[in-house]
């Protein structure tokens, strides 16, 4: 079951890569086609995914060969937090999203100390801001909707 799933995912990736290579414009006379390597790689990926599927076909189908993972919820949760966190930089700048996400991630990793969680709201954005945006001089991402730095006057 698991090898089937892996084979299918890679088949889909190969088809997508072949379609992408097909869209690359043809070469001018005397030049090599810019799609030659992507096309060859996509073809090879397709071949490898077929080998995976053929290998899976030779094995008995057992839905139980994908073991239950007690951490699935936490992993997906962390990935969603990561997606929302990185996107919120564009909307609210660096400081506010970091202040909100820091205690959530700490709690997800098992931190239960309430004072520690509260402290992270201030300390995490402050420490990262000082190191990266003040000391190293990186220009912070500006929030399109609201930026706490504008409000603080930083």
């Amino acid at each position, binding site marked *: 079951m*698991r090898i089937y799933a*892996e084979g299918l995912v*890679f088949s889909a*990736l190969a088809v997508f*890569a072949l379609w*992408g*290579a097909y869209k*690359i*414009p043809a*070469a*001018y006379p005397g*030049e*090599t086609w*810019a*799609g*030659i*390597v*992507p096309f060859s*790689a*996509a073809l*090879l*990926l397709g071949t*490898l*995914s077929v*080998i*995976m599927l053929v290998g899976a076909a030779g094995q008995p189908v057992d839905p139980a060969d994908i073991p239950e*993972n*007690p*951490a699935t919820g*936490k*992993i997906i949760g*962390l*990935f969603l937090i*990561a*997606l929302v*966190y*990185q*996107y919120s*930089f*564009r909307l609210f700048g*660096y400081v506010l999203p*970091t202040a909100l*996400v*820091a205690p959530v*991630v*700490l709690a*997800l*990793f*098992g*931190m239960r100390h309430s004072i*520690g969680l509260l402290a*992270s709201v201030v300390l*995490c954005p402050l420490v*990262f801001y000082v190191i*990266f945006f003040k000391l*190293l*001089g*990186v*220009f912070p*991402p500006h929030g399109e909707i609201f930026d706490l730095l504008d409000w603080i006057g930083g």
Partner: protein
Amino acid sequence: MEIFPALLSVITDPTLLFAIVLAAVVGMVVGAIPGLTASAAIAMLLPITFYMPPMFALAFLYVIGKSGRYGGSIAAILFNTPGTAASAATQIDGYPLARAGKAGKAMKVATISSIIGDLIGDTLLVAGVGFIASIALKLGPPETFAIYFAAFVVIGSVIGKSIVKGLASAVLGILVAMIGFDPISGAQRYTFGLFDLSNGIGLVPLMIGVFVMGEVFAQIEQRSTLTDEVEENESSGNDNALSWKEYKPCLPHTLRGGLIGAGIGVLPGLGSAIAAFISYGEGKRRAKNPEKWGKGALEGVAAPEAANNAVSGPSMAPLLTLGIPGSTIGAILIGVFQIHGIQVGPTLFLTQKDLVYQLFACGMLGIIAYGVIGYFGASKVGQLILKIPTNVLYPVIFLTAFVAAYSAQGSMFDVTVMTVAGFASYLMRKYDFNVAAFVISFVLAKGAEETFRQSLLMSDNGALVFVARPIALAFLILGLTTMALRMRSIVKERRIVLKEHGDD
């Protein structure tokens, strides 16, 4: 001979010495933390090096890589948890020694063997790299492409349990590298009209995602499935002194391990873990006391430690002379060269020879630095690791990954790349795909494509140019033979397993 003036210039530069000592400490601590690797630390610190002088940045990250390999042995011996994959072989004899109250003795053997192994690797690197570079300068595009091809096949097929999954990972790395403008014709590839994709996928955010964010996902899974995180050695013994009489039997294993590690280090993608296990197996086979190996033999610590550290230096040879990283650390170091506008490859020895030898000198001084700190303070580092709360450490690493990915170019798209790459690398590791093959192939792909297309342009017979030139043909055969041998060994292993199950 270039190494001596380089050593002198580094020794007389207090800022470089500071970078070396700091890197030795950072690498040791990071390597000793189970789950964290030197690759992760280097990837995370990579954007910061943009704000440092090139030599300081290179020395700092290169020594972290060396020291991190050694640091893995601290966790392996003291906590029965290898800090890095390379130190898993050290654990076999290291932890029984610690249980017997000889943790300090085992650490000293590990430290001395690491220093000797690493110095063997670096000496061979310094002696041979100029020669390799002079040969590399004479290679044409077909030969260079054939070397790339051999590297792809070796990386994809030798590491991991499945050749198909290894090769699929390598091909995926090539496809991801193809995103963006074609450097030769300017045609857009896999951009789908999105402006952000037109410049391609950045090496730095990809590395941070794969090595740092991927590990954070793996850690949250591990925390949910494991009950005790670290098994602390509770032995009350204190037989920690090491005499010459005790180390003397270890010396042949150390020297052999150093040579094995150096040999494996030159081959792209194989890495420290394979070197350590081969050295351990070879050491046990030749040992006068093989019955003691696995139960707490000092030689069983010396052999793998010398080998896994000896990989470090020679793995820089293909990186610096051909632009082919021999390890994941090498792949990340390419990012440092890129950030500072330094082109790796054979011409590096013509344009930046002093910088190359200064880097080697920093590496050698780094070995001495982590050796001295480790010999006298490894147990202190072990105690420090126990005090680091992982439920704070990994959230902090999570937050650092975002700001580090952003800092590289001030690009929000890089942060998105890092996030997606992190989750994808976690899935790849979980389903036994080969992350090292993916990353190294990503780094190699552009150079391989360029030489492939140059070869086709200069050829009158199309792809036959690779067969018509003997050196190119030799490398193509080398790659295919390696894959065939690997397939044979996998089939052999499966037959043994099936036979054992049949006997049961």
